[in-house]
């Protein structure tokens, strides 16, 4: 790692708590600002409403954090194991599965947020099941998995669209499931999703060295004792579980899972372990800052998070791509 990159890394690490502090300080309820946050940290007594708001912002910031971490690590893992720089966590139809489930559930009259959370999670895992079936039964190559996944994803989206039309004017309730946001995450869904994300993350780190060998090509990786098909399935499995948990919690927030891994790889290079660590940083920063912006850009309305991650993340990514051109 060149020294410029070391400085950049340190800078990004320092940025994380700052972003968190900002995320706690900024919001439409203007009575709670940076001063109250500082008072709170200093242990001063605050009115209970203020504390409630801080709590809300905390949950939201944590949701953004876990979202950033989960999506970018999943995206990175898939990019490595499927050997395609276009792989993102939603590529294999995980979010399509979730939205499909939610739409069908709404069609049959289920609207409780928590029910929908569970349905989204289960239906996302169902699509994952299909992909795993294809991968294991047909002993598929990366390209086969990709094509099967993307086809599944289109198929489910297609059916969803048809049902959405039949839902007619109740479309607004589905729009959330098209855009994604952390504004509606509750402690309950945050907890459940975080656990799944962290378990998945644990396995990604647990297997990082095995995943890392995939850069040597399948033959060499196998000869080193890596069970390539197994690792591929494990990677797909855990990145998808993590993704499913996040889609259920915050809808299909886009771009993070694609852009944050690239940013990480561009900054840090091809070692999977290092890139995975770096992607946690790029992912969470992208998510937290985007969430802060989402509260501000069309104030007092909430902007869809995907729109902000894209508007804010795309220029960063293009800049990094041109700067570190040699790495691609």
């Amino acid at each position: 790692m060149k020294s410029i990159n070391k400085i950049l890394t340190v800078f990004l690490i320092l940025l994380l708590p700052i972003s968190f502090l900002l995320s706690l300080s900024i919001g439409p309820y203007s009575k709670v600002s940076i001063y109250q946050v500082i008072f709170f940290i200093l242990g001063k007594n605050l009115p209970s409403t203020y504390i409630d708001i801080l709590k809300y912002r905390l949950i939201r910031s944590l949701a953004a954090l876990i979202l950033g971490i989960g999506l970018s690590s999943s995206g990175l893992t898939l990019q490595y194991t499927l050997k395609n720089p276009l792989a993102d966590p939603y590529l294999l139809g995980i979010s399509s599965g979730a939205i499909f489930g939610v739409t069908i559930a709404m069609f049959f009259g289920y609207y409780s947020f928590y029910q929908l959370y569970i349905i989204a999670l289960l239906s996302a895992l169902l699509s994952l099941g299909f992909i795993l079936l294809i991968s294991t039964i047909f002993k598929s190559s990366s390209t086969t998995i990709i094509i099967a996944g993307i086809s599944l994803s289109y198929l489910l989206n297609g059916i969803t669209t048809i049902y959405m039309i039949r839902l007619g004017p109740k479309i607004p309730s589905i729009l959330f499931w098209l855009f994604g946001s952390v504004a509606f995450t509750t402690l309950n869904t945050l907890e459940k999703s975080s656990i799944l994300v962290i378990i998945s993350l644990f396995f990604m780190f647990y297997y990082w060295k095995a995943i890392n060998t995939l850069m040597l090509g399948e033959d060499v990786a196998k000869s080193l004792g890596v069970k390539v098909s197994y690792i591929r399935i494990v990677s797909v499995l855990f990145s998808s579980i993590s993704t499913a948990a996040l889609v259920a919690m915050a809808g299909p927030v886009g771009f993070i899972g694609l852009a944050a891994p690239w940013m990480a790889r561009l900054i840090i290079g091809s070692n999977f372990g290092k890139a995975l660590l770096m992607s946690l940083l790029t992912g969470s920063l992208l998510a937290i800052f985007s969430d802060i912006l989402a509260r501000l850009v069309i104030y007092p309305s909430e902007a869809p998070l995907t729109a902000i991650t894209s508007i804010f993340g795309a220029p960063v990514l293009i800049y990094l791509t041109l700067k570190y051109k040699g790495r691609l």
Partner: protein
Amino acid sequence: MQSIIVKDVSFSIKDKEIIKDISFELEEGEILAILGPNGVGKTTLLKIIAGLIKPTKGEVLIYKNPPEKSRKYLSYLPANANIDQYANVEDILLAMLYGKDRKFIVGNDDIKKIKNWYFKLLEKNYLKTSFNNLSSGEQRLVLLSGCFAREPKIILLDEPTAFLDITNQAKILRFIKEMALKMNITVIFTMHEIYYANIANKVLLMKNGKIKSYGKPSDVLKKDIIDDVYKIDVLEIPYDNKKIFFPSVF
């Protein structure tokens, strides 16, 4: 002690028999050279021994275990590696230590080990360079150093001397010999340079997917056998109580 046993191994794809009824046994520390014309099945045999493909018949035992269970003790150099082209040399070498390195972290001892072997084989420091910026020979040397750095008990090398200059060819061959002798490592390599097969303890000469001749170099490397296998009238130049074989090109 027998380190590698190959028993009646055959392999076919869609009715096409690629190798057939191959059997041999190697003692610990022995070197085997597999020779034969292009497309005869050398790489296929090596992959079967490495456990990368399953034979359709027969079995391979490495220290009495199937190859899948022995990979910790095994290094394999493919003829054409399919390496991620933007990866840098250090990352590649570290990845090649898999199973022999520290778990979960990159240990300083691991870095030391790969650097040690790297500099035994290469002079210039390309550790932070992208693999695809190296010359063909340098790329082979990097992968060879990765194979050695694993400190295996079995080394399987598919055309280790391809793309290497004569100095490096000699260096690699001497390393192989030395490691087999001193560290009791069993080595199998394939090659097209017949003369170099003399460094091996045994030579396996293949023809049409089958064993044509198997034994000590001096027994196998004979003009009539070679002429038969390679369908050629080979030039035989005795040198230093061994024989150099050359095709006639003039």
